[in-house]
């Protein structure tokens, strides 16, 4: 394992901004794994740390195969993480809306360019990221639906679901989208948490990445087979909206099966505790996403359901 500095930026008042990567194996640039792009993506940082730990052990035993190089970059935004801000510490811009970046442009464009120029050479790209709405997902692999997408490769993670998202205008500056455009097979892996560590889903994510690398012949690793993934299109997920604002009491969790009209959550009056709304399942299905914050606004998407078509 070699630790190398990928990008630096001088700071007047703090240590210099530095992005470090952990390199395993030698040879072709096979896979790059990217962790926290935002300062609150602690789970994503943790998952990368566990992957680095696992790859270190595999490398010591000679289990990284010939002519394959793996790069893991656990945090691309340590400045924001250290002051507990989600976006860039100075101007609050999102580095994940700056790709492919511009090496002579604005600060966050330069950071994005510095990262992207380094990682775009890799054959496979795996990003651990978070959603802009507070909530939990079933662990899944997410891909932008571009002409470069590779669903059959996404299956090799052995996670239960692959989600395809039709790019919206604001997606075109994300890492995943631009990685695909640069001919890297790019996958975003979503786990349960962002700001806190969920050990179970973190281990699921680590296992999925090791399974993928093993199946691609990059590492020698014994793993169980995982799932035969179901491929979903995001637009086919059924959104369930809150009709009231108030205190949110979640009943159904990601992965739970629900039947039509079954209570999924309650919204309580913030002062007297009375039930303002019982949110009921609009159809039979499986909970794919569930709102997490204890408070909820009217019209928030509180659940996304995989509708069971065969029932």
């Amino acid at each position, binding site marked *: 394992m070699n630790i190398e500095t990928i990008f630096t930026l001088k700071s*007047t008042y703090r240590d210099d901004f530095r992005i470090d990567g952990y390199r395993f194996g030698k040879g072709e640039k096979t896979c790059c794994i990217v962790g926290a792009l935002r300062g609150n993506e602690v789970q994503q940082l943790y998952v990368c740390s566990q992957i680095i730990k696992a790859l270190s052990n595999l490398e010591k035993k000679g289990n990284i195969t010939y002519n394959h190089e793996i790069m893991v970059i656990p945090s691309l935004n340590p400045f924001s993480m250290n002051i507990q801000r989600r976006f860039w510490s*100075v101007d609050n811009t*999102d580095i994940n809306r700056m790709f492919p970046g511009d090496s002579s442009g604005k600060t966050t464009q330069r950071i994005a360019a510095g990262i992207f120029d380094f990682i775009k050479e890799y054959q496979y790209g795996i990003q651990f990221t978070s959603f802009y709405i507070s909530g939990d997902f079933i662990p899944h692999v997410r891909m932008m639906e571009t002409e470069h997408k590779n669903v059959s490769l996404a299956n090799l993670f052995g996670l239960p679901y692959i989600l395809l998202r039709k790019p919206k205008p*604001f997606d*075109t500056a994300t890492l995943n989208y631009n990685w695909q455009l640069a001919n890297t097979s790019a996958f975003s892996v979503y786990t349960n948490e962002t700001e806190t560590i969920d050990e179970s889903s973190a281990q699921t994510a680590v296992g999925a990445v090791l399974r993928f690398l093993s199946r691609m012949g990059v590492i020698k690793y014994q793993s169980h087979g995982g799932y035969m993934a179901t491929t979903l299109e995001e637009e086919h997920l059924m959104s369930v909206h809150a009709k009231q604002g*108030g*205190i*949110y009491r979640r009943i159904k969790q990601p992965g739970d099966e629900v039947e039509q009209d079954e209570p999924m959550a309650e919204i309580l009056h913030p*002062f007297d505790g009375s039930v303002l709304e019982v949110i009921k399942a609009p159809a039979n299905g499986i909970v794919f996403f569930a709102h997490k914050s204890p408070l909820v606004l009217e019209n928030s998407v509180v659940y996304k359901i995989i509708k069971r078509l065969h029932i």
Partner: protein
Amino acid sequence: MIEDVVSVKLPVMEQMTIKKNRFEPITKNGNEKRICIVTGVHGDELEGQYVCYELVRTLSENCHLLNGIVDIYPSVNPLGMDSIKREMPIFELDMNMIFPGSETGAVAEHIAAALIKDISGADLCIDLHASNIFLREIPQVRISEETAPRLLPYAKMMNVDFVWVHSSSTVMEATLSHSLNKIGTPTLVAEMGAGMRITKSYGDQLLDGIFNLMAKMGIWLGETKKVSHPIISTDGNVSIIYSEASGIYMPAIKHWAGISEGDHIGDILNPLTGTVEQQIFSPCSGIVFTLREYPVVYQGSLVARILGGC
């Protein structure tokens, strides 16, 4: 008449409402033209507040001079404006990166879609911005090359100093203006001043332009002032100067002043070591239309934009 555009119940006994003030002629014939003045997409941009106040005040006192519909949206990100945040609080989202939104999407997207729906079909929309807290801008209109044939005649009526026709490749696709232009509602982006500040002289200048524009569109029958002809420029004539060091920027030039190639623009200082980290010189001759307002810089911080090109 004050109307609700979209409203959302917040968790604890509060309603978030985007409001507009609509002015209509006393007698309508059904064929009135409609103009929308929108501001406050970014909660830290306050220059539009004075413009809206003056517009509402003048129109309220002169309803008889109105021959069209004027919709004024003083704050489309009311929570951001109230909490001195550029983004939409709760979601931490730049509102100008989520248009056109989605009626069935998450709350922020739903709000964006409702706003688009309310404005769509107008004969013209002006999306009024200040700069952020880091930069100061002269009054200007920004339009893309793609929309220039349709929008440039309107932009010239706005009494701004400068119209920047920028390349289509730099257009942010998720902005309010892009989304409205895409569905056929002509939309100009006006920008002036600095974030968290109100520059009355700029506001007055733009107000003269808006009334002139409304008069030319047949919406306003009152008197208008003579407006100036803006400099019109493309990206090729704009030089952008970024800091190449981190530190404190001390300007050596004034805003909206002429500059010659090689002139000293300013220095980046290190207050701990007492050293000059970078001396910045102008790469071209021209006029400084954007100047850094906030002194702390990193490599890549925008220091100045010069109209003149290299």
